[in-house]
């Protein structure tokens, strides 16, 4: 944060176009990677077995959410096409992987891309109306997709695996080692979260991503410079749904079970909240949003359990907490839309630009 950009002279375009052109930024990323690599043993050492499993499980859920939020941000934040069906694409990925894993006994490195590709295929179909309709109307069309996919999964036993609409999947195995504990799953999920982050950063700074942003900012001008809008909207839907499908697969392996109840419309809205609170059209914002929205219910529960007893009995409290969670959620989305539409990412940038010239004001 306390770094200056002056004094680094780039002599090639390649150096200028690097993801992290400044040495200090490369160091920061290096340190972050190191922290994430040593986190599980460190947490275990500090808190002991069971508590550590709990803490690491929270980080695991966040990493899954990061993948999904990145995918939705590519579609909504970068391309400007709204979707309320993101969770449905996750369920497509989840059930594709679960069926492949159970019926054909395929390992995760087959089921994971298969789930993503299946979701991408469905996403392209759902994206077709986006050529004709925009904004609210597209939102309703994707909402219809969410409900139709939910219904199909729930009512076709061949997909859903029977009356409970849930399929238990075997644990993922790497080099013969079965990933059972949260600690083992941590590295598995970290790997995919990092790949998703890097891939997104690269997509949005290259030809495809620029075309997405062009469509968002000025679709007429985008077309006039030779971008086939329909094609690129469908590509955006495909990429976004691929991410969603992978998220669904990761979540299924994380839980050990594919269940459509994890991918209802409320989940779609959770993900929309992540990218709105985090920052539309920002990779860092997607990460911030995923962390924030995942932690919020946990923090509210902790807070209510600590201080709520002053006002309510325990039984009352158990009824109140879900309501508080929902209202806090709604309130926060409104607050962000009104006060900081560009989200947490903007707040972070403000802090950075303040310290950029610190101790001077400009």
């Amino acid at each position, binding site marked *: 944060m306390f770094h200056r950009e002056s004094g680094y002279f780039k002599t*090639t*375009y*390649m150096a200028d*176009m690097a*993801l992290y052109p400044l040495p200090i930024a490369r160091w920061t990323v290096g340190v972050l990677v190191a922290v994430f690599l040593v986190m599980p043993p460190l947490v275990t050492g500090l808190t002991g077995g069971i508590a550590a499993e709990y803490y690491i499980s929270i980080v695991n859920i966040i990493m899954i959410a990061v993948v999904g939020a990145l995918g939705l941000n590519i579609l909504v934040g970068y391309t400007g096409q709204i979707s309320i069906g993101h969770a449905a694409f996750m369920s497509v990925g989840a059930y594709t992987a679960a069926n492949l894993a159970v019926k054909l006994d395929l390992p995760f490195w087959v089921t994971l891309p298969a789930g993503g590709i299946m979701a991408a295929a469905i996403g392209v179909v759902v994206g077709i109306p986006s050529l004709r309709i925009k904004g609210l109307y597209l939102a309703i069309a994707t909402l219809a997709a969410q409900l139709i996919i939910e219904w199909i999964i729930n009512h076709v036993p061949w997909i859903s695996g029977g009356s409970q609409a849930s399929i238990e999947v075997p644990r993922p195995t790497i080099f013969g080692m079965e990933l059972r504990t949260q600690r083992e799953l941590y590295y598995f999920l970290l790997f995919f979260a990092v790949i998703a982050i890097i*891939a997104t950063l*690269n*997509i949005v*700074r*290259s*030809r*495809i*991503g*620029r*075309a997405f*942003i*062009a469509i*968002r*900012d*000025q679709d*007429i*001008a*985008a*077309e*006039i*410079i*030779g*971008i*086939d*809008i329909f094609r690129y909207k469908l*590509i955006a839907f*495909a*990429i976004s749904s691929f991410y969603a499908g992978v998220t669904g697969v990761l979540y299924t392996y994380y839980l050990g079970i594919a269940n459509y109840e994890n991918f209802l419309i409320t989940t779609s809205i959770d993900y929309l909240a992540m990218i709105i609170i985090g920052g539309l*059209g920002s990779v860092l914002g997607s990460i911030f949003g995923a962390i924030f929205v995942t932690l919020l219910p946990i923090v509210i529960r902790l807070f209510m359990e600590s201080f709520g007893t002053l006002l309510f009995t325990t039984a009352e409290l158990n009824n109140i907490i879900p309501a508080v969670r929902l209202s806090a959620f709604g309130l926060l989305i409104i607050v962000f839309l009104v006060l900081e539409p560009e989200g947490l990412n903007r707040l972070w940038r403000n802090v950075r630009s303040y310290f950029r010239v610190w101790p001077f004001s400009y």
Partner: protein
Amino acid sequence: MSAAETLAERGRAAPILTVEGVSKKFGGVTAVHDVSLDVPAGAIVSVIGPNGAGKTSLLNMVSGFYRPDTGRIALEGHDITSLRPSQVAARGIARTFQNIALFSGLTVLDNLMLGRHVHMQTGVLASALYWGPALREEVAHRERCEEIIDFLKLQDLRKQQTGALSYGLRKRVELGRALALEPKVLLLDEPMGGMNQDEKEDMARYVLDANLERKITVVLIEHDMGVVMDISDHVVVLDRGRRIGAGTPEEVQRNPDVIQAYLGTSRGGAQA
């Protein structure tokens, strides 16, 4: 070859863009009626006319936004009448807009890079990797964009978001984005609209340089008659959707129909 010969030559070159008898109706309003136009390769052709004459509608038909009800548009002899705008762009026609249409969330450089879109190939997977061919392609096209940045003197602005730029600069960036496409024909819809005298002179110089150095044929819509008469090889006058005159700037200025419809007449003057 003397300058006079060059100029005479410019008007006689084979047409690169031909518009044959195009018409366009919106409901009961005839925006453009049976307009024909030959644009010689390498020339600067201006389309003038009072407000609502159908100039922008004509440009919209050439660039593929409107499909003409009748008539035919051809680029280098190939019919482009029914192509979509993105396909027209890929064939080599770039344009700017009367109301600037830049991508305001992107930097000047990224706006220019978008102009290179049709010349680039990188797909989704290569983009995600940003390695090898994809990276080399980015660098190669970055170099072309830097040439345009130098040409239009935008060096200090390349990493600025276009939304934050002044009006005149945004017009210049929009011209840059169109030039980045390396078009055969450049359609400019009022590039000098809303500019002060200095900015107009700069813009006229850039248009002339693009035409002379980069060999780009220019079709210009402009209200500033001084600029039009100075830089055009050929002027076409529209009024209420119809073509009422055409020729060299001198011929057009002497044409009585044009004077009556456009510049105001002795009769109009008498009434005033």
